[in-house]
């Protein structure tokens, strides 16, 4: 068996397989299908300072080899996470990473401060790339100044591993990555969803209540692989790759492009056991290719 252990900053993952925020609930939703302890970690859904109801229905439409969503960060808030969800997650030994979001820099800072004392939260993923909220979210992620200012504030509030999740809806994602690296981010994860739109031509109206939404699924994968490759050449911190990973082959593709770890998102909706199948594939792949340590293949391209 090859070594699958990878490190993201000070965070040690038993394997590179993580779950993308907003696609895996709090992990528990998938406990009937897989042994959650087999994952490197799970990234729980986008958490904000105050509870949020999210956007109006309809929030989702299937598109060719993918889907558009406009959930809008519906969640019960960070206090609910700390008091109700966190204690239940302690039974798992996989890493628990909290994805945080906010409407202002102060929101981000406060959420990070509240999570910092929790022993088992050894990393947070800062979402500066949600395309589905009116203020904040992607607004911070589309300029180097915005991305840097959020990173700086969260860095001061959270001493453990800090991952910043980047938006693909920018001219140069490498520039944004360099900006957050300069402010002390330990890692960047990419890509969040691509902004998209679909229209019901019979009813002559958009499918989503918000008109536009975030595109995910296999359709975005070549864009995501390209961006992971570009960013991994531009920064020294580890890159976490995601975007349309449907199986083990796709996960390896991201690692060859430069990803130290990967996140599985939309594929969880189609195959709730896909994450552990990817772990198995990685073992098999390493064996077939004579790889003793999966870190050897990271960024081979």
């Amino acid at each position, binding site marked *: 068996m090859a070594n699958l252990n990878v490190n993201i900053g000070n965070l040690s993952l038993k394997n590179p397989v993580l779950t993308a925020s907003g*696609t895996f609930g709090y992990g528990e939703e998938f406990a*009937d*299908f897989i042994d959650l302890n087999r994952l490197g970690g799970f990234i729980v859904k986008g958490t904000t300072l105050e509870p949020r109801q*999210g956007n109006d229905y309809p929030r989702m439409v299937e598109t060719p080899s993918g889907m558009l969503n406009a959930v809008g960060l519906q969640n019960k808030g960070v206090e609910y996470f700390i008091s109700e969800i966190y204690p239940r997650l302690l039974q798992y030994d996989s890493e628990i990473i909290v994805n945080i979001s906010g409407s202002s820099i102060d929101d981000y800072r406060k959420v990070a401060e509240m999570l910092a004392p929790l022993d088992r939260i050894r990393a947070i993923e800062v979402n500066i790339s949600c395309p589905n909220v009116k203020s904040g979210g992607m607004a911070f992620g589309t300029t180097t100044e915005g991305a840097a200012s959020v990173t700086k504030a969260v860095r001061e509030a959270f001493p453990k591993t800090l991952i910043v999740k980047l938006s693909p809806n920018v001219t140069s994602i490498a520039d944004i990555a360099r900006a957050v690296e300069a402010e002390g981010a330990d890692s960047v994860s990419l890509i969040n969803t691509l902004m998209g739109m679909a229209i019901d031509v019979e009813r002559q109206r958009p499918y989503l209540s918000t008109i536009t939404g975030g595109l995910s699924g*296999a359709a975005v994968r070549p864009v995501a692989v390209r961006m992971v490759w570009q960013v991994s050449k531009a920064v020294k911190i580890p890159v976490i790759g995601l975007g349309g990973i449907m199986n083990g082959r796709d996960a390896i593709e991201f690692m060859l492009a430069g990803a130290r770890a990967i996140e599985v998102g939309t594929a969880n*909706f189609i195959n709730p*056991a896909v994450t552990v199948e990817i772990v198995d594939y990685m073992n098999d792949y390493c064996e077939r290719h004579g790889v003793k340590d999966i870190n050897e293949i990271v960024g081979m391209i």
Partner: protein
Amino acid sequence: MEKYNKRMGDFRITENAAIAENYSLLKLIPVEGLLSDSAIRPGQFVQVVTPNNATYLRRPISICYIDNDANEMWLLIRKAGDGTRALCDQPNGATINMIYSLGNGFDLSEAGSSPLLIGGGVGVAPLLNLGAELNRQGIKPTFLLGARSAKDVLLAEEFAKYGDVHVSTEDGSAGEKGLVTTNTILNSEFTHIYCCGPMPMMKAIAKIAREKSTPCEVSLENVMACGVGACLCCVEKTTAGNVCVCKEGPVFNIDQLLW
């Protein structure tokens, strides 16, 4: 809830019968295991991988009937899009992958002695299993089935095994002419109403139920991705805020809804 663990597994189609112009009744058995182990409740649904990648996401389908003796699940499917058409075109012996059994079902403890089960179009599907289960509990329900015309009245002979069947057709070719909402059976008193069908029908039935002060449950089919409460796409506004139809529903008491 431990008893109701969700599973993913392959099912083999033992019989695929076109029962009306746009509808097929698929009978399936799990390739491994017993359905009785899943304690499937009336009103729950499955998420099906559509054949030949006809769709990217799974498609949610109501469980129509469970025959535990035959270890058989029935799915009533209307050809509505590429995915459901591909399912209806599957030959006997074909295998399809399902996640089951999902959501909360109907609340049988509230049925009372004389419940009315109202289904419109393909929405009659979950009412068959509900009627059968009510029968097992010694309750004889009344069914009201709505369809466009006589040839679209689905599974009437199956429903008749469990209770009296009343029919409304839009063209009057079977039962009373008109929509279910004008059927004269609604003048009778019932202890509870269970309803599944098109949204305008369910809203109209909910209004009637409120006027008569009859408790009423409806089964929603909001567009969903995951089916397990993770993606938060299929939300319905309720008295408790936005909740997932897949996990907190698909059946809701109308008192929980804002319509």
